[in-house]
């Protein structure tokens, strides 16, 4: 079975995002970029499935600028076999990404498509679900466990209030949550070796997908500062409030 793993180049999660004073967005000049952490988890899960014999080939794909090659190389260093860069300097919305991935799916015919549940820059949490809709396939979102069982995949999902397990017929789309695994590091020797793995370069036009955005960002601002709350008078009051919050019985 082939596994397709889309990955995105985003601001490094250690970097504190700074909102530009002119309201046009977050300042990304000279800022460290890395693979979206949820995507690292997806790559790791794909590799583990391959190590367990459930998959034979892992193909990493990214929609992004030329530098997204570094992100793909990281995926290759972790253990993916092949990479595809769909190059564009424009910001691409989840709907357009999903359409591009559908086209790649049609070409590659993977059994599982493993994505991070959301990107830490736009926090949309849509791409995987949209891809599932466009391809008419089932979706297992916020996965904390993935088990291939014959022609189905069982996905345990993190939901409000606990866990839920669903069984999906393959091919299926799975999006990863934090607790699914702890990704291995892409070591420098492996990064060097990854230079010999195939990396194809395409454009959205090659797939016939219109990537023009539907949303326009009018402005980007800092969030409202957290206000000081109330000082309570007694432990009993605190107990009552904790009950209201649903953390106490």
């Amino acid at each position: 079975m082939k596994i397709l793993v889309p990955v995105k180049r985003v601001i490094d999660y250690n970097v504190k995002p700074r909102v530009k004073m002119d309201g046009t967005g977050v300042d990304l000049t000279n800022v460290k970029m890395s693979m979206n952490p949820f995507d690292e988890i997806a790559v790791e899960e794909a590799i583990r499935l391959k190590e367990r014999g459930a998959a034979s080939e892992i193909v990493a794909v990214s929609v992004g600028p030329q530098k997204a090659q570094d992100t793909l190389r990281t995926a290759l260093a972790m253990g993916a076999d092949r990479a595809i860069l769909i190059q564009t300097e424009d910001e691409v919305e989840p709907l357009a990404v999903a359409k591009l991935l559908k086209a790649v799916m049609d070409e590659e015919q993977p059994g599982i498509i493993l994505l991070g549940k959301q990107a830490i820059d736009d926090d949309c949490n849509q791409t995987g679900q949209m891809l599932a809709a466009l391809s008419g396939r089932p979706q297992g979102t916020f996965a904390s466990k993935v088990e291939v069982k014959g022609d189905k995949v069982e996905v345990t999902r993190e939901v409000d209030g606990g866990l839920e397990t669903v069984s999906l017929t393959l091919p299926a789309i799975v999006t990863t949550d934090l607790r699914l695994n702890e990704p291995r590091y892409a070591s420098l020797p492996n990064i060097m070796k990854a230079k010999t793995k195939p990396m194809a370069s395409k454009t959205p036009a090659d797939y016939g997908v219109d990537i023009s955005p539907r949303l326009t960002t009018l402005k980007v601002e800092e969030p409202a500062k957290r206000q000081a709350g109330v000082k309570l008078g007694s432990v009993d009051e605190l107990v009552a409030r904790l009950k209201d919050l649903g953390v106490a019985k």
Partner: protein
Amino acid sequence: MTNSRYEILFEPVRIGPVTAKNRFYQVPHCNGMGHRAPSGMAGMRRMKAEGGWGVICTEVCEIHPSADISPHSEARLWDDRDIPALARAADGIHEFGALAGVELGHHGFRAQNRTTREIPIGPSAHAVASYDPVQSRAMDKGDIRNLRRWHKAAALRAKRAGFDLIYVYAAHGLVTPMQFLSRKYNQRTDEYGGSLENRARLLRELIEDTKEAVGDTCAVPVRICIDELIGPDGICASEEGKDVIEMLSGHADLWDVTVGDWSDDSLPSRFGPEAAYEELVAHVKTVTGKPVVGVGRFTSPDTMVAQVRRGVLDLVGAARPSIADPFLPNKIRDDRLDDIRECIGCNICAASDNTYTPIRCTQNPTMGEEWRRGWHPEIMPQRESEDRILIVGAGPAGLECAVTLGKRGYQVALADAGDELGGRVARESRLPGLSEWGRVREYRMSQLHQLPDVSVFLASMMTAEDILEAEFDRIVLATGSSWRRDGVARWHRNPMDRLQAERVFTPDDVMDGLAIEGPIVVFDDDHYYMGGAIAEKLRDQGLDVTLATPAPLASAWTVNTLEQARIQARLLRKGVKILTSRALTGFTDGVATLACAFTGEEIRADFNAAVLATSRAANDQLYRELIADEARLKAANIKSVTAIGDSLAPGTIAQAVFGGHRYAREFEKPMSDDVPFNREISELGPWP
């Protein structure tokens, strides 16, 4: 755009006739440069002014040859010829709008006068505190008049040199007015001894003299010990400490309050937290309306604000935090809190003065190098080429090297075989009491996150082949060192032959978490912190531990970091048996032989295991492999292969950080026989 929370720290404060532009006050501190390296000292003070401190003081300034504390090199105002050196410091401080303070001091009976050969003087006749075979004589009225005249002359010279604050120093047990104040040293029966008022008389007179001489334009701060920390026999903050301030409040322009001796005032992080003495210091503002400054290894802006808001201090005093980060005030002002280099409380700075060498700092490798090497802590010279550099090993040397190269604009790859950055710092900061040392790693990691051209690779063990194929122009090996298993250090220069390998361990094994059963003998021939810390860690696990060392003290070198007494006390209280002046000469079949360091006579004792904290071997195999084949390096287009830090020669963390920093600044420079730093040569005197 200061976070409004910290605005209070940037309020001006009136001190007598002068006004400090903010509450950041660098209290007097030694620096090992002093009168022997005046431009070095001036350059260091100037850098702090650039960093935003409102008040910057010199170290203690000797006012007269009758109290010479050589070989310590402090500031000096013996006569007019000493003025230009101090004026240089004052000018540098003024350049950025800070006030300049000078701490005039006379060391009384604590001055051994090794250079001047004068007889030390003090309130009563006492042996000097060191073991020099020297005793002081009790001052008579003539001596007191002399001291007052010398102090006044020095104050006038200090004013000519341009200082805004001219201290009267009465703290740490080190100086005459404090020696008079203390019942421990003052056994006089005249009007300068006995009651608190009498014991404070000399101090009052000196303050009045100084105010009279320079008080019109200069502020006169008083540095005073408010608690000797020796219990009811000494000055206590809630009693005499408070009373003397109340008594003299009308005289001083500012109270610079301290506690105990130097080892208390500069409390190492191993023995106390930030703001350790708040409870004692809090008494002071209840009895005086004058501004109060004090220290507490303050690195957190929130703690600083709290001290002011709670009415404990008016000015936030700092010595060590200003050493670790001369730009602390500016970084708070600019809301760059992530960029603050926090003091780790290791006291390697104090050790510099105690070893009579220019100050150095584990966190700040440019400390002491401002003038002599032209190093700026915040500004790195732009890169000179497009060289791509691979650094193997992310311990303190590798981290500092990567950060500095990154700040210069170079493309860097930092590779480490492990799962975390930090190397020895990550490991050692897990030893008892050394948790704050982890900040060496944390600060550099925060910097790396802001350097997109520095890529970090974990789980990346690099072989020589990997390095040759990696396509970098320069290779830096920062692969650290490992504790030796053969006992070699200062006592044994050749491997011990009577060691049974299976029962012999090293600090690396202990830090790796290897389970070792007691009773254990820790043989310490390293003499810095490791032997003691290992003994403490094993003892905390409930094991029977003996610390044996050929030195007469446990962790002997830590007298320099002001920790030794506390270390030995802590180990003894925890039940570690300490055998000093004993060398481990063998350990087989559960029996250790320990030889007397003087007679060689051996005693035998039963142990289950021995931990050897002796010396380390550089992890230089990779380096040697690479440089062995020059042709191969040339074929790979590698311009240089350099070892730094412990992998060059094991030393302190401070030395490793310095080595990493130095490589990053200097690697493009060709090899030269020139002295690699500026120095000042003494002026030849008159000759017949």
